[in-house]
Every structure is written in structure tokens, then in C-alpha cells.
């Protein structure tokens, strides 16, 4: 699938267009052409109108910290990364994403403004990174 995340569990998805957009540094959602609902994580079927006419929209990469945790007991594939801090971010323009913190857990405050970027990982994979704003 879209090369998003450190480990890949899903080889195929209708959302395969995301890979290219990630490479271009875009944080992308999909929007139903019919009902205009925005989906982040993106999806290609609209559960509202049951339609599959979707278009890509890009987000600014700004958002609000919803919650977070630092993982000390890591699952397979993440042993060497622990401890790492996972952040949930409500993105301006709609939707939510999960990203890794660039910074210290101590500096986080739920509700604070954050910016979201994309970083390269080994094996051509990419991951969202979250940076607290001043």
C-alpha cells in the first residue's frame, strides 16, 4: 500500500494514490464529490452517499494535539525505536492522523497547536512527524 508507516500490513488498497502524494510532501485527504465530506484517513468509498467518486484534497499540515502516549513495550518491528511517542492530531481542514513526535513528551500539552510533516524511513517508507508549535 501507500508506504505510510514503518511496517506495512496492507499490500493493496483503493487508496494507492497516496504514495505519490506522500513523496511530494503532501498530507492528503479525500473528498466525496457528491456530499463534499472530507476523509482523513483517506478512503475511496463514501459511507454517506455510498458513492465512489472521490477527489484528493491537501491539508496545510497544521493541527491540534488530541492525545499522545510514549510506547515503551514495542510490538514486532519497532523494538529498536522504543521509546517513541505517538500523537493523535486533529488536522485543520478535517480529519485526524497519527504521527510520531519530534521532541520530548514533557513538552506536550493536549490542545496545543502542532505542525505535521512527512519524513523518510528506510526502505522507501514514510511517516508523519509531529512538531509542537511555539
Amino acid at each position, binding site marked *: 500500500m501507500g508506504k505510510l508507516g514503518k511496517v506495512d*500490513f496492507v499490500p493493496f488498497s483503493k487508496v494507492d494514490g497516496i504514495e505519490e502524494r506522500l513523496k511530494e510532501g503532501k498530507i492528503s485527504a479525500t473528498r466525496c464529490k457528491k456530499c463534499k465530506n472530507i476523509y482523513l484517513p483517506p478512503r475511496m468509498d463514501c459511507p454517506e452517499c455510498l458513492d465512489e467518486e472521490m477527489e484528493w484534497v491537501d491539508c496545510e499540515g497544521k493541527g491540534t494535539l488530541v492525545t*499522545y502516549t510514549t510506547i515503551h513495550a514495542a510490538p514486532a518491528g519497532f523494538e529498536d525505536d522504543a*521509546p517513541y511517542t505517538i500523537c493523535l492530531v486533529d488536522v485543520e481542514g478535517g480529519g485526524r492522523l*497519527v504521527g*510520531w513526535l519530534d521532541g520530548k513528551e514533557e513538552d506536550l500539552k*493536549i*490542545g496545543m497547536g502542532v505542525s505535521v510533516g512527512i519524513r523518510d524511513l528506510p526502505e522507501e517508507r514514510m511517516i508523519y512527524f509531529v512538531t509542537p508549535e511555539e
Partner: protein
Amino acid sequence: MRTGVIGIGHGKFGRREVTVQELAFEPFREALDDCGLHQKDLDALIVGSSPEYHRQRSLSGVVAEYLGMNPKPTFLVEAACASSSAALATADAYIRAGIYDTVAVLGVQKMLELSTPEILALMGRVGDVQWESGFGTTFPGYYAMFAHRHMYEYGTTREQMAAVAVKNHHYGAKNPNAMFQKEITAEKALASRMVASPLTLYDCCANADGAACMIVTNEETAKKADTPIWMAGLGSATAPMSVLRREKLSEIPSAIDAARNAYKMAGIEPKDVDVADVHDCFTIAEILAYEDLGFCEKGGGGKMIEEGETHIGGRIPVNVDGGLKSKGHPVGATGVSMAVEAVKQLRGEAGERQVDGAEVALMHNVGGIGQYCFVNILRR
């Protein structure tokens, strides 16, 4: 037409050096003994389990064979950690439809036959594998994020969470089927190693092997039993699997909906509950449960444990069987385990853990991180 519980059985939870079908046999035998029935008196076997943990594929067929249930129908019902509550609700449906008269509902899970790498790999796929698991989310990690949000919104403290662990181990020490039969202190809990901040080891329940069984039957047959226990209210609901699609992260929305449905069907209010088993897979989960079930107001869960309202003698005793926290959490067995404990309370057979005069018992069984919740109310 009501469904009644007439037989119960509960195995020892923990590390069990037996096969999954041998594990299932113990409470099945006990439940049959309990109501004086034989396999031939049963119309079907419904198994609740989470198949990912077993090397044996298509479990219910193998278990049906081992229990001597052929040629009676069987199938497996799965809703993650709430699998056997879903199985119980399904048995109720088959009985109320008049399709079966008497059904054995078995919750069973053999978790500890996988190797550590296999378990770690499984753990890595606990969330939405497309959008979340690739970031290294874990089961404790999700509840940790709920905890941080709850702390932020309501000022809940790590000490309040530790108090849940202390209470549940206190009662678990009196439950011979519990994995951990020993008391713990708040100091020890707070000082244990961090798993996913703010949750430490003692905030988390443990994987376990385990099985529990229940014989349920139609009203006519149940009335002939000494002390039939009635399935008075069954509620179930879902919420988005993905935390990326949940509106609030300081509650389990499926629990709120499931509880509403169950109370309505039983015709009761939260204050009518005499004893409850709630899904304390993590200490924060029990605090969320108090609120989601309406035992206290939103945000009041931390205070409720602090003030001892959920101890025996308190307003609504919760998890006086030790909860998942001290019993261990054999995923598919947990729902029926809760129900078996509820039946013991309502029969007055809970020994040292008995809540005097309990007439109404509630079970709250959450699947996964809240994508399912089943709330069942039993009464005497």
C-alpha cells in the same frame, strides 16, 4: 419469553499446559454437573473466542468434537475481547426464536501457546492495520491515549488508576480461579515499569489461558431449576475501530450506547445495579466504565474509586471477582467469565466475595479498544 441460566463452570485462568480443547473441557464438565444435564440434552454449542491466538484453525469444530457434542450444531462468535458476550447474546437470540431450547455457551482462549515473537507480531496488529499499526500503536498505547485525554479533561490521576488495580487485586486474592491471587499496594503499582505512558505494568491486565461455560435455556426449562438466573437486559453497540474516526477519546461510545439498550430492555436504571463486572483491561478502562455505565457523572470516575464506592459495602461493588486485572484476560473467555461470576453473586454463592442480597448484576464487556461493547444485565 426470557432466557435463563441454569449451569455455570469456570476454569483456572493463567498459564495452562493443555490444549485449547482440553482447556474447554473443564468448565463444560462443571457446567453440565451444575445443572445435571448431559450433552444429549443440549441443542447447540456456541463458542466465543478470538481465533488469532490459536494454531488450531476453526476452533468450534474441534472443541465440539472434544466435548462430545457431535452431531449438534456449533459455530464461533467473535467480537475481540467481547467474543463470549456476543456468543451469549447470540445464544439468547436462538433460544428466544425457539430454534434451540438449551445451548452451551463457551468462552475459551489459549493465548500462551504462541511464541513471544508471534505474540509481539499479533500485538502489532491490534488497531486499524491500514492507518495506525504502521506507526507502532499497541493495545496499552490506545488506552494510554484515552487515559491522557481523561486526565486532561477531568483531572484524573495516576493514583486513582492505581487504586483500581489495588481494589481488583484485593478481591482477586479471594478468587481461586484468578491468575494472580495476591494483594498489591498503590506504591508498587505506581513504581512499576512504564508500558505506554501514563500506564505502567500494574495498570495492565495480563494475557492468560482460560475458559468458562454457561448453560442457558428457555423460560419453561429454566423455571424447573433451583435458582434460575434470568437474562434481563442485553445491549450491544459499536464505535469506529479507528481512534482517528472517534469524536471523543475520553469515553467508550459503544459502552454508552450498549448500556442504554441494556437498561431499557431490563427496565432498570444504573442505581438499581447491585454488583457489576466491568472490562478493566487497563485501570483507566474501569474508570471510563463507571462513567459510560452511568454509575457516576461524566468525569467522576476517578473520584468514585477514590471514595471506595465500588468496593463491597460501597454504592455499586465492581469487579469483586478480581476483574481482568487479577483474573487475567483470556480474550474470548472473559465475557462468560463475567457472567459466571454474576450468576454466583445472584445465587449467593460468591463466598468471601459475596455482595449481600444481590438481585441485579451487570456485565460490561468491551471488544478491542471499544469497537464493540456488550452490556448484559442478569437478575435473580
